[in-house]
Each structure stands twice: as structure tokens, then as C-alpha cells.
């Protein structure tokens, strides 16, 4: 009985993990549609399991002379609000100022170290969801 329970738990966990990966795959593919053929992926994948009160953030370098596209999506179709802050925490952009638009382009004059923050739209009725954020740069 104990063996059966262990197998059952393992199976449920494995299926949950597979479903989670499939969900992330789907939302990543959907989000990649926003990174059009004009843009090249930065080669990394950023995703987060967010509750409505969480903020996911990471630091990256935007090199001068480049145009970047940042796209943000969620598996639950709830808008992901993304912000870009400079090294002094000045807000350079918030998608919330533009109707929670899913992607935006940034024409970068001089190289910047920025922090990108992502949150779920708190005005929508959701407890949590997977958020995907993709970055591309123009060819």
C-alpha cells in the first residue's frame, strides 16, 4: 500500500511537472510571436510563477545603438505589467501607462544597466499565473 501511494504521488508530481512545462512551452511560443522576424532572441528564457502580489525582477544590460523589443505574456491571459528602471531606480517605462500593452520597443542611445520588473495585473481576478518575458534585439 505504501509502495502504491509512493508511486501514485510520484506519478502525480511527474504529470504536474509535464503539464507545467507544456503550459510554459505554450505561453513561450505565443509570446515569441511578438518578437517578430526583425528581432533576434537574446538566447535566454525568463519565466516566473507569480501570485498577484509578487514582483519578478532581473537586471540586464541594454547596449547603446541597439533597438530592443521586450514582450511579456502569461499563461492565464492576465496581462503582465512590465517596468524598466535605470540604475538609479528612475522609471524609464511602464506598460501600465499604455493599457498593459504586451510588447514595446526601446531604442537605446547609450548603454544602460536596467532592472526589468514584471507583475500580474492586480485589477484582474486571479491568484497566480506563469509569466514569460522575452527580449529580442533588432538585426
Amino acid at each position, binding site marked *: 500500500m505504501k509502495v502504491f501511494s509512493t508511486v501514485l504521488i510520484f506519478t502525480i508530481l511527474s504529470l504536474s511537472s509535464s503539464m507545467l512545462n507544456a503550459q510554459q512551452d505554450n505561453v513561450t511560443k505565443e509570446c515569441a510571436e511578438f518578437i517578430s522576424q526583425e528581432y533576434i532572441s537574446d538566447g535566454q528564457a525568463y519565466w516566473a510563477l507569480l501570485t498577484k502580489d509578487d514582483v519578478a*525582477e532581473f537586471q540586464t544590460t541594454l547596449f547603446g545603438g541597439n*533597438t530592443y523589443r521586450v514582450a511579456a505574456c502569461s499563461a492565464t491571459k492576465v496581462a503582465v505589467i512590465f517596468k524598466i528602471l535605470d540604475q538609479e531606480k528612475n522609471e524609464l517605462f511602464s506598460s501600465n501607462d499604455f493599457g498593459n500593452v504586451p510588447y514595446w520597443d526601446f531604442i537605446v542611445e547609450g548603454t544602460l544597466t536596467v532592472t526589468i520588473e514584471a507583475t500580474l495585473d492586480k485589477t484582474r481576478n486571479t491568484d497566480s499565473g506563469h509569466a514569460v518575458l522575452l527580449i529580442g534585439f533588432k538585426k
Partner: protein
Amino acid sequence: MFLAFAGFSLLLTSCEESSTTQNPDTAIADTVKVSTSGTFLLDGEIFSIPSPVQTALLLKKEKVNFQQDLLNPVENRGKYLTEVQKAMNLGVYGADLAFVSCQDNAQLSMNYFDAVGKLSADIGILDNIDKSFVQRFMDNAGEGDSLIALNADFYRAGDRYLKDNKNTKTAVLILLGGWVESLHLAINSAAGNAAILQRIGEQRDAVTSLARLTASLDDPGLIDLKKNLSELSQVFADLKSTYEYKQPIVDAQKQRTFLTSKTVVTMDTDQLAEIAGLVDAIRKNIIQ
């Protein structure tokens, strides 16, 4: 703000403990955690490493002379026997492939893609990502821009696979190899070129992140590399940097913002020589 990450970090610790019994090699004291964002989380901070493709495109834009002897020869691939060597050189060959893809040399591109394909198969990535990459690459062998985009998509798919499977050690080492190779190519193309020199100086945040990430990996094959990377990080930290904030300019109709703030990094010839020496030592450690 970091509460969510801290909570998730604890969860991942238990996941990694369970994976230790299944795959000892990938779990060797791997103290870097995958964060909730899929980037790397270390001491509450999350990192993103610049793509080698961006350096390749800068070298193309600056019309630097192509020097094949700067690349890691594909014949070296057979020398890499450990998972650490394979992962780092997968990054190295990826950066070389990006550089070669800008040269309109289909045969050389195929040779480097072959090396990338074989190393990624060796460490279990190729069987777990979209198989169409290989066919698409062969179909576009003569199309430099398509190859660069495919290269980037391929590495993103690999990055996703490794992070999904909590194999942060391999993901870090691939990024490290790619970053070191692209910096090596930039340094050896920089003579008299202000744009490339500036780009080299702008790697400070990347080297800081990579030094911290790599320091947390416990592997006897990484001792010298970690020491050199730590020294390199210190040299970059000593570079003079100034930041000037300017109000961004928004073009809402075209969904774009002009970011006009900028950082300027100043590097003298002694500092460049020191960086070049350390990058050379790190690269030799990786490719030999």
C-alpha cells in the same frame, strides 16, 4: 519584493536534493538556484547575461576583418570529455557560430553548427528541443541573418530546457563559455575601434554576474578558471564609469521609447591589456 523568490528558493533546494540521487554529475554541489524568473538566483539576486550574438553583430557592423584563427577549431571538439568541458565549449562554439554566420561562408557555418549539434547532443539538449532546428539550419546555411536568428533561438530553447530541468550548472557554463569567446573575439578585433573598446568596457555587469555564479559551482576542474574570473571581475570593477539620466522620449503610436540616458566607461591601455591577458588565460583553460 524578494519574498516570492526566497520562498521559491527553498522549494528548489528540496527539488535539487531529490535530483542528487538521480544525476550526481549535474548536481555536484550546485548551489546556484533557478529563480522563479528562469534566470539565475544567487543570494536573492537574479541575473541575465548578454548574448554573444550582439557582439557578433557589432563586429559585423564595424566591418572587422574575419580571422579564422581566432576561433576555437572544430577539431578540438573530441578533446572535451567531461560535462563541464562540453558545456563551456558548447557556449564557445555558439559564439564562434554567430561570428562565422556573419561571414557568408556556408561550409564553415555548417562545420560550427555540427560542433554545436554534437556537443548539445552529448549533454542531452538536442534530444529535448524542437528537432526542426537542425533542418532549418541546413536549409539556411548560406543565409547569414537567418543563421544568426536560428542560433539565438537554438540557445534560448537549450536555456529553457536546462532551467526547466534544474540543470543550472550546465546552463551557467554554456553562458560563461559563450561570453568568454565573444569577449575574446571583441578584444582581438578592437585595435583602434572606439565602438568595440566601449563594448568591452560595458561588460562589467556581465563579468560580475558570471564571477559570482561560477564561484558558487563546486567542481575541481573550475578552480583556476574561478580565480581568473574573480581577478577579471576586479579589473572591470576598477574601470571608471559615469551615468547620466535623461528623460525618455515616448512615441506611443509606434509603441516605442527612446532611452537617452547613458553610461560611459573609461578604460586605459593598461587596463585593456590586463583584461586581454585574463580573458586569454580563461579561454585557454576552457578550450584546451
